[in-house]
């Protein structure tokens, strides 16, 4: 990363930029900057991908049937444990 002011200012706004919650003037400045600064472009792309991968690979997490059964037992809700499977 070039140690000039643009890269530093870019770092301060990085989260807002990748989350798309940045005002349009600043967004345009950043886009100008990353068009010329390859390191910053790579940082943006790989950061977005990092966040994407964590979200995407976690989305699939479901509760195993036996874990749900033990949960309902602990909560004294055994009589409701079948409901979900009947609905689905």
């Amino acid at each position, binding site marked *: *990363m070039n140690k000039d002011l643009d890269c530093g200012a870019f770092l301060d706004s990085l989260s807002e930029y990748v989350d798309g919650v940045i005002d349009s003037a600043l967004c345009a400045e950043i886009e100008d900057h990353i068009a010329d600064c390859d*390191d910053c472009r*790579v940082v943006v792309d790989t950061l977005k991908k990092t966040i994407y991968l*964590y*979200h995407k*690979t*976690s989305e699939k997490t479901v509760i195993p049937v036996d874990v749900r059964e033990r*949960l309902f037992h602990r*909560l004294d809700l055994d009589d*409701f444990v079948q409901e979900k499977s009947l609905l689905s």
Partner: protein
Amino acid sequence: MSKENQEEFSLELLRSGDRAEIARLVDAHSANIYRVALKMLANTQDAEDVLQNTFFKAIQALPTFEGRSSLSTWLYRIAVNESLMLIRQRKPEFDLVMKPDDDEENEHLLTEFTDWCCLPESELMSSEAQGYLDEAIQELSEKLRVVFILRDIEKLSIRETSETLEISEAAVKVRLLRARLVLREMLSKYYGEQLDAEKRG
């Protein structure tokens, strides 16, 4: 989890201990709570303990739940506290140890500039890679890890994350950026090596 889910539940029934309504609440939120606990603790047995304790305590507290925060924020908060308590019980020696990334300047966390985005998704999400993602998140200090989990895995907003953890939105933003930068560095090293290996053939 959005506010819409909350509107599906009758606080009145929940407060009065209606078991069918409570069972619906558990089913609506248990996957999220289990996922947070798994990511916090990296251990299925510990995650199951947190899952059970979270709903056990929530059900006990429901009669006095005032609804100042949403049900999901409230459940996340209990789950985070249960997770942190378990971590402290399991490894009390780490309590006072700061992780090296906590006081590092953000700029020093940018050293990897390999563009690994071109790797195919099958490789980025192979089971080995997923194992590495889980290891990497455990390298974060608890206070950075929990912010990353709530914001970037559970997709809570900055405000919801701040309400869940009872810290300022400014603190959430600082910790989130730090966590993201640390993980990006670690993933860049990992996937960078895979790219090199491919180039070597």
